[in-house]
């Protein structure tokens, strides 16, 4: 598994830029749901934990990987549920805006 450092840095730079531009436009009304949503998306780290636990290369890796899956999954599940609950509450006063 060869790490392509430069490609990785390109990806990071572009993603950070997109993130900056997209998130700058998020209304301050929704800053709390924004935080819980990005937190849920960030829990995509579960992917790395799944491979670690599943490959079972050592007992330590498997145990740490499993705990990591628990932590990340609870963020995914909890994060999406609460974000949706919050967004459902935001209603406009007009019949349709």
């Amino acid at each position, binding site marked *: 598994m060869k790490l392509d*450092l430069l490609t990785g840095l390109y990806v990071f730079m572009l993603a950070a830029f997109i*993130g900056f531009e997209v998130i700058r436009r998020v209304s301050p009304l929704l*800053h709390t749901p924004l935080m819980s*949503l*990005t937190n*849920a998306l960030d829990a995509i780290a579960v992917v790395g934990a799944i491979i670690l636990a599943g490959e079972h290369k050592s007992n330590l*890796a498997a145990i*740490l990987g499993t705990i990591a899956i628990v*932590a*990340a999954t609870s963020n995914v599940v909890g994060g999406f549920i609460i974000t949706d609950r919050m967004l459902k509450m935001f209603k406009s006063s007009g019949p349709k805006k």
Partner: protein
Amino acid sequence: MNNFLGTDTLIEVTYLIATLLFILSLKWLSSPATARRGVFAGEAGMALAVAGTLLHRGIVDYKLIAIGLVVGTIIGIPLGKVQMTAVPQRTALSHAFGALCVTLVGTAEFYLRAPHIAPFMMAVLAMEVILGSFTFTGSLMAAGKLQEVLPQRPVTYKGQNFVNLAMLGLAVAIAAILVIHPEQTRLFPAMIIIPLIFGVMLVIPIGGADMPTVISLLNSYAGLSAAAMGFVLNSKLLIIAGALDGSSGFILSLIMSKAMNRSFTNVLFGGFGQIQAAAKGAIEAPPVRSATPEEAAGILAAANKVVIVPGYGMAVAQAQHKVRELYDSLTKRGVDVTFGIHPVAGRMPGHMNVLLAEADIPYDKLLEMDQINGDLPQTDVALVIGANDVTNPAARTDPSSPIYGMPILDVDKARTVMVIKRSMAAGFAGIDNPLYYLDRTLMLFGDAKAFVSNIVRELTGGSGHGG
């Protein structure tokens, strides 16, 4: 291996689509009208990426994965269903979980790979576990303070900044040694334990009023540590998700510190509590005018335009539903009621908006500081509920005030100001508020929820039904 090439490509394609969905998810969050679609896109991307990962050909043991996913779901559901007032501590807790995941994966990767770790790989791995471990304990501390299981007052001592910086420096020095000598595996635990302690020390001097900035910063660190993990695992998906989360936290931190007129370093190393202790002089308090719920109701009913300014006190008193009743009864009488929301009102970015939306107040009545400040001079009554520093005119006028320069809601420009407050005791921040001593200010002493419901009773019971 080549037989599985198809599977590998398939996995990469699921990651690619997941990345697209994640970006769309954040884009759709830009407006309340499309925001829920954004959550759906995020969920779809997540499901796709996890499903793709399960096809990974190196996986030999699905039992542990299943256990992890099930237990995580069992923990996650109640965390998704907490009360809206508990959202700040829930958010801090989820930053801790995210950081925990990243730290554990980094630790496992180190022991699997050592001693054959290339310098760059070791550097990002070190960054991953250092950021991850101090974000973990720092977020736990923040959650504990917000949940009030830990003392909320800032804990400061002499030389605090030096101790903190020394700890961080030590962790980085260990990381540097490991980059050159990755075979020194016995150094690795120190590189986790020191940042774990650093995280605790970093957050203990921070008071409640600074929580919005600190939560945003921790959010940013959690994202960066996940991005570092992406470099370690050579996963572009993870690099991107981490970068998105990191930049989101960074933008929020910028907005929060701008709204407090303070720099990051000032929030983290400033020890706000110390400054305030110094500012708390023994000045003789001038007299204040107070009013009863009947009087307050009368003034509100006679107004044309009312601006309500909520703060953390409203959240503590759980008064948002009563505020909604007040909004209803005033609106029915033809009074124009809007809400002025300061960016740092509450304990996390957007906190007040969520509470008021929960109470069914339409979001187009929730106005940002810049929108509302132009209206305040034409406002008959500004009703401040549980907010203090964000309405303090000293921030505009008194260069010696610790909050001088902080942008505030100019409620003192309204024709009448009413402030619901428990007592004249200095608020959480401990700064005196000259607003309370103005001629046009009426203090409404009492619990926010009880006082607002008394006003509502006067308005609805007092003079007919809905006027």
